[in-house]
């Protein structure tokens, strides 16, 4: 396991403390177009460090206490979808069954730079991962992580929605793992790492190739970038992330495969799942794990119809 750098603790403690000094200033606006007879959708604006205004979608089952026709009784579990590495964020991730919203409180976050949280900073894709990367204090993901922590804090503050504090899952890429480790209240985490796991290799694909692009043009930045990325390396968060964790690794042989990510599974309740290179099989693995963790009687109630 990677030993956290000496300034790791202070870097994140100061970030969390800075966030604590900024009022959340939550503002909820119902969105009738995305509201159904079984769930209400809200657009949510919050303030994070900077100060910076961020955005999210909160979906709340219409009834928090009674049994839906084929659902579970409230209080309801929560799935917090942290920001994906893309410009747009939808009310629930593309491909997720809308029926999920009948049984689960969901919150999806658009962090600084993403659509609906892109003023004054509009992220480039590619480009988000390397914005300010040579200076840990100015690195854009320091703010993005703070945004994610604010999102978790917001969810836990909404006791009026019928949240079940024993079933709070954070789901997403590396940001899910970091958020669940640094924040308070997450009981489960499911992560599919793609950003922060050591220095990317020369043939890295996806977002990590942005780092290679940067180094090709500015090779003298290597040490600075290594120092910044060490503060975000998932291995440094492994001890503090929730024990109930699903690690969704890349396919065998990829640079983030199950062997590489094994250090994240040092928990009695960890599940490691390598990608089957099928969005069906990988998605099914995630949703059935969540249903099992949430003690749902039938995982089909939260699966898209095509996966039943």
């Amino acid at each position: 396991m990677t030993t956290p750098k000496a300034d790791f603790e202070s870097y994140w403690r100061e970030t969390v403390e800075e966030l604590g000094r900024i009022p959340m200033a939550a503002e909820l606006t119902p969105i009738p177009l995305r509201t159904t007879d079984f769930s209400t959708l809200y657009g949510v604006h919050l303030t994070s460090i900077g100060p910076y205004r961020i955005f999210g979608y909160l979906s709340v089952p219409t009834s928090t206490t009674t049994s839906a026709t084929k659902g579970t009784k409230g209080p309801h579990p929560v799935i917090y979808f942290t920001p994906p590495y893309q410009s747009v964020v939808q009310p629930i991730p593309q491909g997720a069954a809308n029926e999920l919203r009948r049984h689960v409180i969901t919150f999806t976050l658009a962090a600084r730079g993403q659509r609906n949280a892109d003023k004054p900073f509009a992220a480039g894709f590619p480009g988000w991962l390397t914005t300010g990367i040579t200076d840990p204090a100015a690195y854009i993901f320091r703010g993005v992580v703070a945004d994610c922590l604010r999102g978790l804090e917001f969810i836990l503050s909404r006791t009026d929605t019928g949240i079940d504090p024993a079933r709070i899952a954070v789901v997403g890429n590396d940001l899910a793992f970091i958020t669940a480790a640094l924040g308070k209240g997450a009981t489960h985490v499911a992560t599919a790492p793609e950003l922060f796991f050591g220095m990317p290799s020369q043939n890295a694909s996806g977002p990590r190739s942005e780092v290679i692009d940067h180094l090709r043009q500015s090779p003298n930045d290597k040490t600075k970038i290594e120092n910044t990325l060490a503060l975000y390396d998932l291995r440094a968060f492994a001890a503090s992330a929730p024990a109930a964790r699903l690690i969704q690794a890349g396919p065998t042989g990829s640079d983030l495969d199950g062997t590489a990510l094994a250090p994240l599974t040092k928990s009695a309740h960890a599940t490691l799942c390598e990608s089957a290179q099928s969005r069906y099989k990988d998605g099914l693995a995630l949703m059935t794990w969540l249903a099992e963790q949430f003690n749902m009687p039938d995982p089909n109630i939260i699966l898209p119809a095509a996966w039943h």
Partner: protein
Amino acid sequence: MALRKPTGKPDDFDAFWNDVRRQADALPLEPKITADPLRSTDDVSVFQVYFTSLDNIRIAGWYCRPANFSGTLPGLLTLPGYQAEPRIPLDWARQGYAVLNVAARGKLKSHHNFNPGVPNLITHNITDRNTYAYRGIIADAWRGLDFLLAQQEIDPSRIGMVGSSQSGGLTIITAALRSEIKAASAGAPFMCALPEAIRLTDTYPYQEINDYLRVYPESRDAVMTTLSYFDGVSFAGQVACPIIVNIGLRDNICPPGATRAVFEAIGSADKKLYPYDGQGHDAGAHLQKPIVTEFFARHLKNTGASS
């Protein structure tokens, strides 16, 4: 949900699209090409490009070609999916193609004068075919083809189109309307057999249409009429080039029943369907990749490779 029968291909379908084409062709392309040294590699030259499309919207894209080549290159056109930004298509350039990935209107670098957002893109002006979002998005794909045709290093008789999801649907539509596309590969095509697709799914993006109809039930006829002008099935009969289509039989976003329907409607005699069991919206992309590579090599590079 009870849906009325599909409205089918409208009688004035060809006239409608001929008029859109006339409007687009009347505008100068005004291409702007800027080298991007940050994203270029030893073997691939990368350029950020802009050009003008329908309604005078400036459209962005990534253009890549081999850093070193002689003679002319085969060309490839592609676009990203509904919610994605265009990636830099280094892989195709490394295989010897000059390739353009178009950020159609509404994407990050093409949204200054058109920004419905996501969600909302697929329902933007959905009751009016003359201003519906996909009228412009389809034109943006054509204009991407016009951009490729304007590049001296590209052989205009060897241009193909490849894409998945929204780009898969646009591949079928563009191949139908533009005979300059000589070979096409479409994965999990979006915007196809729409009445059936929205009935079969409760996932976004199609769910956006269901949301709209729930709130505005009185607009159902107008919505279905508009969609009939933009449904891949309405275009597919005009596809004449060789084409391959791959679908995932567990696709939860573009239901395989709908994607099969568009394949069956394709007019080309040289067509092949690759259905993948146990695959979702990625439609077996990792299994299909070598097939697509060989397909374009055979049709665009004259390598003599066998099918």
